């Protein structure tokens, strides 16, 4: 199979997919539309058909026969297995499966099927990557998605939650401690400046405190040159 892998690496992406599909479901003869369109394996004719049939409405693919035949009712990542050395997988999946025209060996569950498009309206696909019990997005080490697709997934899930297509867990809002009178000067019109009416003192205790007589006499004696005549 190693020699097969080298040979496969030289063929274009869609022929590669056909062979893999045939290996998975051998008795079914799969007449993929891409195979019937151009038999030549030239890159430019195939790259012109890179746009999948479902690129405008990616949610339709999840109801189509080919999807059901390929995946059934299981999530798209259920039969994917990462290739790595040792028992513990690396904590981050690969950065991306597709660089330019080349696709790597064993691409992740989203990259291996060009009809699967990560879009915020594709709610059924997004739900497959969210845990049904906790509502948290699955880790890429669990699903096998490459980091680029995982980022796109995160963004799409966030947009879907903003638009209300996916349910989100929200905190409980407590209204008991807030005051909504809106009377403070910061949010209401600035109150008029305080002006003294005649006879009123600035501080209310001005009139009530009586100075010590001897202190008063001493101060008056010191400053007697500067006092106003009527004081």
């Amino acid at each position: 199979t190693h020699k097969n892998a080298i040979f496969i690496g030289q063929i274009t992406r869609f022929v590669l997919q056909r062979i893999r599909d045939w290996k998975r479901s051998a008795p079914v003869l799969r007449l993929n539309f891409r195979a019937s369109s151009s038999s030549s394996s030239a890159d430019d004719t195939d790259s012109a058909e890179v746009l999948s049939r479902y690129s405008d409405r990616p949610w339709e693919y999840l109801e189509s026969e080919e999807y059901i035949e390929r995946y059934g009712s299981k999530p798209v990542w259920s039969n994917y297995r990462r290739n790595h050395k040792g028992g513990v997988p690396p904590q981050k999946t690969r950065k991306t499966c597709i660089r330019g025209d080349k696709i790597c060996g064993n691409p992740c569950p989203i990259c291996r099927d060009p009809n699967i498009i990560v879009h915020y309206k594709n709610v059924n696909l997004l739900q497959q990557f969210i845990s049904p019990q906790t509502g948290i997005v699955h880790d890429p080490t669990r699903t096998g998605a490459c980091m680029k697709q995982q980022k796109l997934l995160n963004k799409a899930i966030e947009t879907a939650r903003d638009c209300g297509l996916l349910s989100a867990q929200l905190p409980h809002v407590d209204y008991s401690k807030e005051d909504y009178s809106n009377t403070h000067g910061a949010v209401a019109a600035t109150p008029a400046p305080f002006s003294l009416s005649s006879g009123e003192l600035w501080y209310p205790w001005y009139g009530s405190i009586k100075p010590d007589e001897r202190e008063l006499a001493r101060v008056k004696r010191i400053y007697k040159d500067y006092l106003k005549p009527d004081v």
Partner: protein
Amino acid sequence: MAASSFTRCLVKSYFCVKCVAHAQTTTRMFCVSASRSSFVDAPKAQFTDTEVQDILTKITGLDLKKVFRPIRRQLTPPKYKLMTDTELEEAVRKAEEQAKHLLKTPPVLPERKPINDVLYEDQMLEGMDTAKYVFTDINFNVPHRERFIVVREPSGTLRKATWNERDRLIQVYFPKEGRKITPPPIFKEENLRVVFEQDRHEDVLNQCIVQFEPDSAEFNNVLMLTYEDIEKHGKYDLLRSTRFFGGLTWHLVNGRRIDGLLVDMLQRDLMQDAVRLVRLFNLVHPQSESAQQAQTQQATDLDLLKIYAQYESNRAGFIELAVQTYEQTKALSSF
């Protein structure tokens, strides 16, 4: 006579005319209804009145299974406890208190007045920059409604920030969980329609109270749209036993459109709730026919329903039929 009306006041919070004459301390919480009985053009009941809140909490119901239904969150292994009967009752009582706390209605407030206050007009600073500068007071111990946020325009005017700018900036400096800086697209018409078709009104309302302040225009707008949709399709049960049922009832009562809700209650055999709803209607619209008739006849219970059906309702036939069936079943069961 006085003793019987006194007990009636204690058991049911309906009219107690006699209590006005006797200076009894227990009539303090019923003073709203007591005063109305003496004046014809009495003031309309407000949302914050004790009696109104009491009726709304009772109508909302307390379905523990719905309030504490399993939500999606980080799971822990389940805990099993062996309890005696008393401990079990104590646990149920605590759960009910927690549920009551969770079911508190969000406040219904009048729309906040826009802030148009210019603090200073400085021609010297005109054209100094093409952007506005916003100065926010970020002291931690200041309540958000007393925080000063001012804007220096490129024309040199120093003005107080508008409510939208205030909300945005307070979210920038003191972020609240779940709130976004700009309102998410779920509150647009087309997205709201999609969500209402999926019967997820409660999610929309939760998002709304997390995102907006209770006295803002967008908050009231979204609430109104949701309540309209619920009333159009008769999906009252979606909000029953949530914290939004009180708001829904208040909106409908103010719009004098309680027929749909009343019919729904009667269909589900919630007679007491229906009676309380009609009572709330009479409190909020004391000048209406049914309120005045009820006052003159001193009606209670099912008589209130009959009076309402006679004078105000569009679906009078159904209501009267339901009341009759209930009375018959009660009479049959008592034998």
